[in-house]
């Protein structure tokens, strides 16, 4: 599998007159063609900011960023206007939690998808509508020909989410960014949409970055999972390893504190405290304040992301010091 996307040492800081937010503090990862990378983390950990950086969607005048994001070898952070517009229109597509923001309420779904197809492929009127119908079929919307004529508000939540996926895929992107696309959906609808995304990812062989705060959701869709905390990826591993043998104290804490089957009657292992304020860049490990294994060298300098075998990366001094096992 070749690399589709390469992110290296990405830093994103928002500077406003009254505050500074160090939202992303040195994030590196790759996405291969045809794989789904899950990014799991709690609220404010920098998941959305990381994702939006790939499309350079941040307000230019008050965002400071550094590092590198390359799509198929092309540097995104220094890209010119024309290339950036190609990137957004054709190479990378995004779906998010609220489909209402993807659609204009005054036009039918069909009109909006056909219009996008026409703009990106130069197809004629009739061909664009045919393609729009195929796209609705592809996302398993029943009676697609009729649905083309529906307005966004006339569709149920799950149906709108499918239509948004159709719109995103209309330009044949090589990378799909998904920011909690199923979080607002009902349980019985969420699983339908998750399975759809998984199937389409295989059918179309696109790379997917799937952001979520729900471990179960990440497990259902991901090939690899990256766990984010305070603007850093603290652990990155193939999904089986992440679930079976998480190594970073935060990943372990997150898995242990997530309630699931068979925990009834047992006391939950909560992580004390709350995530740090992002106004300052921490001098050491940003999890140190909440970590039960904390030592003096945790706060001296930020730990590096170390490989612990089999493309499993961990950012923790315990792993730095003696390669594994000790914290267990």
């Amino acid at each position, binding site marked *: 599998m070749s690399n589709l996307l390469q992110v290296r040492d990405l830093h994103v800081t928002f500077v406003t007159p009254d505050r500074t937010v160090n939202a992303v503090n040195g994030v590196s990862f790759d996405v291969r063609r045809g794989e789904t990378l899950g990014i799991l983390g*709690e*609220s404010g950990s920098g998941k959305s900011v990381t994702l939006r950086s790939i499309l350079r969607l941040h307000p230019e005048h008050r965002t400071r960023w550094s590092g590198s994001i390359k799509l198929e070898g092309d540097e995104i952070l220094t890209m010119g206007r024309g290339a950036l517009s190609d990137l957004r229109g054709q190479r990378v597509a995004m779906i998010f939690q609220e489909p209402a923001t993807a659609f204009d309420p005054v036009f039918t779904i069909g009109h909006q998808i056909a219009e996008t197809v026409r703009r990106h492929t130069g197809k004629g009127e009739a061909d664009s509508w045919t393609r729009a119908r195929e796209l609705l079929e592809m996302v398993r919307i029943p009676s697609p020909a009729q649905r083309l004529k529906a307005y966004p508000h006339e569709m*149920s939540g799950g149906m709108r989410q499918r239509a948004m996926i159709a719109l995103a895929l209309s330009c044949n992107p090589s990378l799909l960014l998904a920011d909690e696309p199923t979080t607002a959906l*009902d349980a019985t609808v969420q699983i*339908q949409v998750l*399975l759809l995304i998984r199937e389409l990812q295989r059918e179309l062989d696109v790379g997917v970055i799937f952001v979520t705060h729900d471990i179960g959701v990440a*497990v259902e869709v991901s090939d690899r999972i990256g766990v984010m905390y305070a603007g850093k990826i603290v652990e990155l591993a193939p999904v089986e390893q992440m679930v079976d043998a998480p190594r970073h104290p935060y990943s372990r804490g997150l898995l242990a*504190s997530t309630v699931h089957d068979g925990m009834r009657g047992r006391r939950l292992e*909560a992580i004390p405290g709350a995530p740090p304020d992002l106004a300052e860049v921490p001098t050491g490990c940003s999890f140190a304040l909440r970590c039960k294994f904390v030592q003096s060298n945790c706060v001296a300098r930020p730990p590096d992301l170390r490989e612990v075998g089999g493309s499993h990366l961990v950012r923790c001094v315990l792993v730095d010091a003696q390669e594994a096992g000790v914290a267990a």
Partner: protein
Amino acid sequence: MESLVPVEDRGGPAQPLLLASGLRKHFPVPGGLLGRSGKVVRAVDDLSLSVAKGETLGVVGESGCGKSTVARLLIRLIKPDRGTMVLDGDPVDEPHGITVNELRRQVQMVFQDSYASLNPRLTIGETLAFAPKAHGLPAAEARARVRDLLDKVGLDPTNYAERYPHELSGGQRQRVNIARALALRPRLVILDEAVSALDKSVEAQVLNMLVDLKTELGLTYIFISHDLNVVQYLSDRVLVMYLGKIVELGSVEAIYGDPQHPYTRALLSARPSMDPRRRTKEAPIQGDPPNPIDPPSGCRFRTRCPFAEDVCARAEPPLADTGAQAVACHMRIAGSGHSKAVAT
């Protein structure tokens, strides 16, 4: 002036703490010529339940099925169109019963949105002292109660009493909301998605705290959530709702271990897998829940049910006891006419 000592148990442990029967709430749908379309949202339809002393009753179901409406009816934030309630033997809002005010003292509620629930201009201490003072507790005693409450929810009183809501994290604000719900020493606390907005690591802290408080204060909970795992963790009995109706009700072991209603089964198997080697292969049911304005005739689940037959459209299945749990499905009613039901 009402007394602020905890209310004594009256009917004994066997008498339900709360009984609700035939609760109904329909909301008019705006629209049409006179601003009313004549249609109604059947948010809660003839729902009966009982809550035993000291138990946690979990309530699950998808968005819009009526969970919050049930909660708001139970503390009379909204008036039911019909139905009655009895609190430990006392009819509510009836000549020989207790007043709605007394009900609201003994039954308290915690909402999902920790920020909107707190007055931004009051310190945490002022917020917590408000209800006890309004019920006549002298200032010094109210201050002592604030300290005690903060202590109970794990917030250091000297550090937190003077703070404002925006100076707290989401988890801390939700602790304050729980403390406020406890300020009048209630017997029943209704938690409506009370931990849903919290991050998992913080959610676990608050769940542990809820378990401790329940034992320490001898509380009874109604725990409403769309998170089936959390409901399983906390509840003794579980009530499953679909479009304003109860479809299944039973012990947590029965509901999770041997669910009978096709909807309960679908809901449970729609949970994302935590095991990458056993991912979900197929969605248990297709489509979205229908609109509660014009719910399907007969069984409201029939439009999504893989077992629906003619009888399901014709007749509404009553909630029938099957031993371990009560189920509203024609397949479980002897002689209903469903091909999978036992004949009488």
